[in-house]
């Protein structure tokens, strides 16, 4: 009797685990941001360009889902970590790019009985973006409408006039 129950339970759990489906998606919408600095940005002869310029507060919008559905246990919110780095196309080291999170809505409609509810933490203050990947924010499960704002500092007419461009790369990691 005991053996039979154990085997039955094992089968159920095995089936559940075989049926476990993990979804890990990150979408990034919105447009590239290219700030044009021309004569209209100089307030008076002799003045410099604004040293600090910012994009729209929702220049890019990220949606994240990192969940696991297990047949009899429901849908669990898994912990994720978002890192950010840049890969320079044409850049000048005097220009410092930074990014911050200006929004983000956890979706707690998940039937979550295994882990924490969906959530998002950190990233609300500007963080400089370097060529080394660093954590921007962490969270659990499904978070939508994560709005991202960029900032450049170090803009100046003392820099050679040119098009400076860099690729901002976001990576989503399991944060177990």
């Amino acid at each position, binding site marked *: 009797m005991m053996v039979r*129950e154990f085997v039955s339970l094992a089968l159920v759990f095995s089936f559940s685990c075989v049926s476990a489906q993990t979804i890990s998606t990150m979408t*990034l919408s919105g447009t590239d941001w290219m700030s044009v600095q021309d004569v209209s940005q100089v307030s008076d002869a002799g003045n410099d360009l604004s040293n600090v310029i910012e994009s729209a507060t929702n220049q890019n919008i990220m949606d994240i889902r990192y969940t696991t559905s297990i047949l009899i246990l429901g849908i669990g919110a898994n912990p994720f970590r978002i890192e950010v780095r840049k890969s320079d196309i044409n850049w000048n080291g005097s220009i410092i790019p930074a990014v911050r999170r200006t929004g983000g809505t956890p979706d707690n409609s998940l039937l979550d009985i295994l882990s924490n509810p969906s959530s998002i933490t950190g990233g609300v203050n500007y963080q400089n973006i370097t060529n080394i990947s660093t954590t921007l924010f962490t969270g659990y499960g499904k978070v939508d409408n994560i709005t991202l704002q960029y900032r450049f500092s170090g803009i100046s007419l003392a820099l050679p006039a040119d098009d400076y461009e860099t690729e901002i790369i976001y990576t989503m990691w399991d944060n177990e």
Partner: protein
Amino acid sequence: MNKNLNIIVFVCLMMVAVKENLSAQLLVSQSKNIGVSIGDIAIMDIEPSGEIQLATSSISEAGLGFSQPLAEDQSKWINYSCSDRSGNTKRIDVNVTAGSIPDGLILKLTAANYLRSGDGVLGISTGEKVLTSAPQVILDNIVRGYTGSGAGNGHRLTYTLEVDEFGDLSESSAAVVTVHFTITDN
């Protein structure tokens, strides 16, 4: 008792197995480009605004000449902001575009080298120029940058009025001339 223990152990093993599959993985990556485009800029002014007067004094005693220079003014400053995507340098030309300098007198202008709060690779003085209607370079080799705005920033201008030919002098109440500055590509 044994049954319960087996169940607990099994559940734990299964949960560990599920969690192991999820640990420390790069899940997905996305990117966007950002950048800044610094365009061609050339903007210049003279600070403070308004006219200057170069008043001469009369000769105090018969037989004496004028002391040179007759008058001098250092109240004006050239301010500019510029950049050039092609890498061309710029210069600032100066000439008289209206009015005439009285006979026997010359009006000289010097732009000093840059001073104060700007940054960049700024213009170099070409020294003292005797102003005429023909444009002359007063600052050259401006690469890029900004001088700072307002009096006390940029390149100080020194106007001097001198007697050139005493014999050509004639009594005159006032002569007004317009001095024109142009920032242009080399």
